């Protein structure tokens, strides 16, 4: 009797076991599929961003001999600074280009010829001549950035097979460009302008410097405010505050604040810091304040979790030998919680650095050409710059949008890496 019963049970168990294993395999397959799904999208994202944006780090330049004609450059003919600054440098460059292509005789042709190079060329020439008037009458070999359209063509982003009317580069210009390439006058090289310039209406001159500096200044403000305030709040709430209705209320509020849409923080910043306190618009100082408020709840929540995860036995040990509560917290609990706190803080800040919505509200969406040198000078931020450029119709700005995203991602990657390194460094075993 017993043996048949056991036999029966064993077959049931076997059948059941098969089902259980199948279920386990299925679940693992789901998990793997989910991970692959995410990875595929990540790969698509990176490939598309990099393939679109990497070329923005290079710029094509036209090398051309220029005759610094005194009659154009020195209108009052006295060689003074004032006179030199009023010179017709466009004319000089036009003459230089016409010298290369004598067939461009009509006004229209000359205009098209001038459209090959960036307006930056005449400013470069002016600066050199004003700085060194002895160049008058000399022949200079000038390296001028090409206009955005030529640059795009050089990078293969303009389809030559399109009919002329649908192309931003005319047939005549195409012929000239091919000639210039054949003469080895057109070349692409690393674009310093992209990293050294602020924004510009001319795509070939637009750079991310003002956005990077704006983001950097905001980061400093955030570190200075959000980290100490968040840490102090977390320590107080976790280690010192009594557990009562008020602290419960505070906790609920902090958790809610972490979920408030970021644009609301922007409105708050606009109302409080700009309208009421009277701080300047578009300033990284205000942006930093707003982003600090935005990250505070995240920092408090993660820091509290890190502090809570320190085993109570450590607290007891310290209290047991007669450490005061402050000593216990600062000498034992905090060092052990620090990796978690730093990770949470850095990741929270990295998130805030990628925010654009609150910055739109406080005027950091402005067109900023000058690179900010302080916390109160107008600036923009990397994500806002992405937004601004993404809005521009020129083909060259598409490339720059992606390049700005690459820079932003690099920024965030660096911060996350820092979080990992700090965590590794401070982590202690017990």
């Amino acid at each position, binding site marked *: 009797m017993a043996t048949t019963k056991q036999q029966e049970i064993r077959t049931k168990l076997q059948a059941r076991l098969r089902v259980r294993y199948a279920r386990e395999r299925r679940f693992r397959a789901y998990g793997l599929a989910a991970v692959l799904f995410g990875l595929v999208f990540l790969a698509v994202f990176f490939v598309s961003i990099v393939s679109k944006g990497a070329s923005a780090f290079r710029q094509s330049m036209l090398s051309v001999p220029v005759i610094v004609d005194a009659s154009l450059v020195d209108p009052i003919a006295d060689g003074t600074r004032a006179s030199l600054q009023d010179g017709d440098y466009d004319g000089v460059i036009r003459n230089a280009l016409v010298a290369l292509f004598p067939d461009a005789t009509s006004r229209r042709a000359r205009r098209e010829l001038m459209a090959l190079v960036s307006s930056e060329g005449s400013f470069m020439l002016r600066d050199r001549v004003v700085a060194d008037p002895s160049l008058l009458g000399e022949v200079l070999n000038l390296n001028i950035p090409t206009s955005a359209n030529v640059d795009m063509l050089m990078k293969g982003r303009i389809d030559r097979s399109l009919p002329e009317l649908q192309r931003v580069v005319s047939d005549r210009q195409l012929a000239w460009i091919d000639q210039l390439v054949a003469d080895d006058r057109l070349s692409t090289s690393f674009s310093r302008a992209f990293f050294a310039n602020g924004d510009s209406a001319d795509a070939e001159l637009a750079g991310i410097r003002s956005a990077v500096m704006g983001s950097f200044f905001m980061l400093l403000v955030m570190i200075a405010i959000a980290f100490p305030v968040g840490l102090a709040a977390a320590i107080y709430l976790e280690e010192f505050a009594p557990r009562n209705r008020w602290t419960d209320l505070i906790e609920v509020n902090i958790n809610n604040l972490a979920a408030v849409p970021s644009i609301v923080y922007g409105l708050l910043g606009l109302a409080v810091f700009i309208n009421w306190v009277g701080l300047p618009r578009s300033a990284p100082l205000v942006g930093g304040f707003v982003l600090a408020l935005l990250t505070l709840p995240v920092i408090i929540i993660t820091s509290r979790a890190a502090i809570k995860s320190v085993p109570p036995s450590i607290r*007891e040990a310290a209290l047991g030998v007669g450490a005061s509560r402050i000593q216990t917290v600062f000498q034992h609990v905090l060092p052990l919680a620090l990796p978690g706190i730093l990770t949470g803080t850095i990741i929270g800040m990295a998130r805030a650095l990628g925010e654009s919505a609150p910055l739109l509200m406080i005027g950091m969406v402005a067109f900023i050409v000058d690179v900010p040198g302080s916390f109160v000078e107008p600036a923009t931020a990397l994500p806002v710059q992405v937004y601004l450029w993404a809005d521009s119709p020129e083909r060259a700005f598409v490339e720059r949008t992606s390049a700005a995203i690459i820079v932003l991602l690099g920024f965030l990657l660096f911060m996350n890496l820092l979080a990992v390194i700090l965590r590794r460094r401070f982590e*202690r075993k017990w």
Partner: protein
Amino acid sequence: MSTDGEVEMTLEDVSAGVPQSQTVGSAQVASPFVQAHGVNVSYGDIHAIKNVTLEISRNEVIALIGPSGCGKSTFLRCLNRMNDTIESARVTGKILIDDQDIYARNMDVVSLRARVGMVFQKPNPFPKSIYDNVAYGPRIHGLADNRAELDDIVHVSLERVGLLAEVKDRLHETGTGLSGGQQQRLCIARTIAVSPEVILMDEPCSALDPIATARIEDLIDELCENFAIVIVTHSMQQAARVSQRTAYFNLGELIEVDETDRIFTNPQHRLTEDYITGRSG
């Protein structure tokens, strides 16, 4: 079956209100160092300790035994006010150490804990070096005037717990790398480094193997020359081995306290007898 029934009856009897503070035996001693009088502790609505009166003299080892949740650890934690860290805990009654009311308003908890050291159930060295573990107490209390004195305190403390020979070459390695028994002795060294007057031990051997346990018990024997030691233990053999007196707690009440020999050979109270003979607990 019948035994179970009996236990249930017994428990009911107790909660139904056998007159309180009817501690059997001798709670008083001739020259008390620690005096607890009518101590009550409650956590919110839970009355954890009911009207406990117990005196402890210098240089004795007293063991607190009893079933889980009977309040012996709670009582222990009253003696250095570790219960302060639990927010809902409320302590009433009087506890005097060396004729000083430790729950008085002007009593400083930090200095109290320097005088009443504590060793915990789970070894809990700081994740620092062995040296820093022992030196921590003397450092925060400013017991050493210079490095040499501090070295001295550390060496003497480690020597007394018999750890010095084992770790003297790696004083600056982390204390958490030691074995469980060594860690617990390190914790005891850390406690005695501040020269307390009383040492509280909350089941100090429950996480240790028998050899490490024997080592700690020997240590307790040696330490009782200088310190009053209150030890909570679940092992009655351990209580019998290390203590001069034993106190039996049940459901928050101190049922019986007496010379250890008498408790284990001739308990006066029925509950004590049941516990010791293994019929309850």
